[in-house]
């Protein structure tokens, strides 16, 4: 599904990603963690071309991510993304948030787009709010709408960029539950998160990043009980 070879990226002089080698198979669930500034968000943002990598090669679903706009557009349509700040469109209703890109990008019919949207809203248990505006919903509800919105484009891969970090504690669970269901249905997922219980339960592999490098890449069992690297142990002792 994803193949990254020697990917590097700089913000001006500062190197955020250093020779990243990383691959994900179809159906795999990956959790990425690490201290802030370690490059984990940048890494997944490179996967749908929100950030441009400057060195190395990056392949998503068999397509090489380059300056070729057509490829970029295709990749963006195969990859869904959920943001820390939800980024729902405040001027559109929940339903319109979901139907916009099927209507505009895929040129689906209105009936088709709305049927699909309602079905997805039911899946994230929020269909009764379809005609409301995002500002009228709680944070947890907004994030569930955001997940449903990404799913509207039938992505093969879902990226989650700290999806629960901006939420009040009592709302974290409802979002994680949706993600767990999604994982159980076989979606390929890459989540940047600090929710270690979620990682234990769902992840096939946990990746620990620090200073732009992948330090550790192992199964949850090994990651939590017997990590190879000293830096990982240090990090785990801080957050657990």
């Amino acid at each position, binding site marked *: 599904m994803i193949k990254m070879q020697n990917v590097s990226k700089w913000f001006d002089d500062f190197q955020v990603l250093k020779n990243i080698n990383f691959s994900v198979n179809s159906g795999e669930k990956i959790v990425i963690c690490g201290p802030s500034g370690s490059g984990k968000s940048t890494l997944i943002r490179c996967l*749908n071309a*929100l950030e441009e990598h400057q060195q190395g090669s990056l392949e998503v679903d068999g397509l090489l991510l380059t300056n070729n706009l057509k490829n970029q557009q295709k990749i963006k349509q195969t990859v869904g993304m959920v943001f820390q700040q939800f*980024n*729902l*469109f405040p*001027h559109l209703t929940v339903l319109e948030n979901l139907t916009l890109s099927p209507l505009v990008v895929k040129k689906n019919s209105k009936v088709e787009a709305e049927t699909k949207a309602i079905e997805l809203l039911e899946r994230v248990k929020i269909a009764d709010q379809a005609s409301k505006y995002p500002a009228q919903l709680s944070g947890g509800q907004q994030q569930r709408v955001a997940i449903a919105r*990404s799913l509207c*484009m039938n992505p093969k891969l879902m990226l989650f960029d700290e999806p629960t970090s901006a939420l009040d504690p009592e709302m974290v669970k409802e979002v994680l539950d949706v993600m767990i269901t999604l994982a159980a249905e076989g979606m390929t997922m890459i989540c940047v998160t600090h929710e270690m219980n979620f990682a234990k339960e769902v992840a096939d592999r946990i990746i620990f990043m620090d200073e732009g490098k992948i330090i550790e890449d192992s199964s949850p069992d090994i990651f939590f009980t017997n990590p190879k690297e000293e830096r990982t142990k240090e990090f785990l002792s801080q957050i657990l």
Partner: protein
Amino acid sequence: MKQSLAFAKWVKKSFLKNSKQTFLSIILLCLISIVLEKLLYWLFLNSVWLGDANACREASGACLSFIREKFVFILFGLYPREILWRPILAMILFLTLLFYSLKFERWNKSLVVVWLFNMGTCTWLMYGAPSDKWGGLPLTLILSSVGIFISYPLGILLALGRRSSLPIIRVFCVCYIELIRGVPLISVLFMASVLFPLFLPEGMIIPKLLRAQVAIILFAAAYMAEVVRGGLAAVEKGQIEAAQSLGLNYYQSMRFIVLPQALKYVIAPTINTAIGMFKDTSLVAIIALFDLSLTTKTALKDPDWLGFSVEAYLFASIIYFIFCFSMGRYSLALEKKFVENKA
């Protein structure tokens, strides 16, 4: 009884809350009544409605017979008297459709068609006389409304261009905006009327009205661009990222996500700019286009009716005020509507 009691309460609460407020209320009330009294005498009790200029000069009040005598000229300039129905009908058509279009819900594709048809009819009506005969209110309405409606999309393009990732487009837009904002409208109009024809191939004539109109559009676009830029800056970066991650391209994310939000943020300054433009069209008087301000000024030069400038300018001001005030109210209504929408 109950109502009058409520009224007394309201008066007490609003004007007589404490000694300081009571004092201020009384002072202001005195000032207002003095002004109103003077106005009453000047405009009604001592004014001349029917007499000639001499009767006016003898009276101490306003000379309203001057307005009665001149309002056709002030409103329509040099437009031939026998076909005045044409500009009148054109204005009625234009203002009616404008009024109809105020409701946001009515905006759709067929309305655009109706507008195009309406504009065509108005143009045909106005061309009952050549464009150098046009004047007064119709001319002011043409210059300002065409100016506002074309400069707005142009301003949006310039504002988007200013944020473009392509250096050539960005530099062009920045230069254009800064250059235009750096010179007075009068000089742009002057160039359009005097300098521009010198560069045209021989025999080619572009009517002065059209040149002035283009100058106003180009000038206003720079100001609109800066207003829109403010709105674009207020849209969070995450909005574009979300749009991109859903597969929308640049045009689609601007059209459906960024602009609808950005333009709503800047309704008040947009209409503010439009009001400014409406009044700025009076500067075309400098290149001898007979807009409302120049017809007013010209009416004053009639040797039979010298010396009634207060009345004339008051009349013109009232007309300007009606339009500008309406725009201001419309801006408030729009803002209220969109704020409610988001709850």
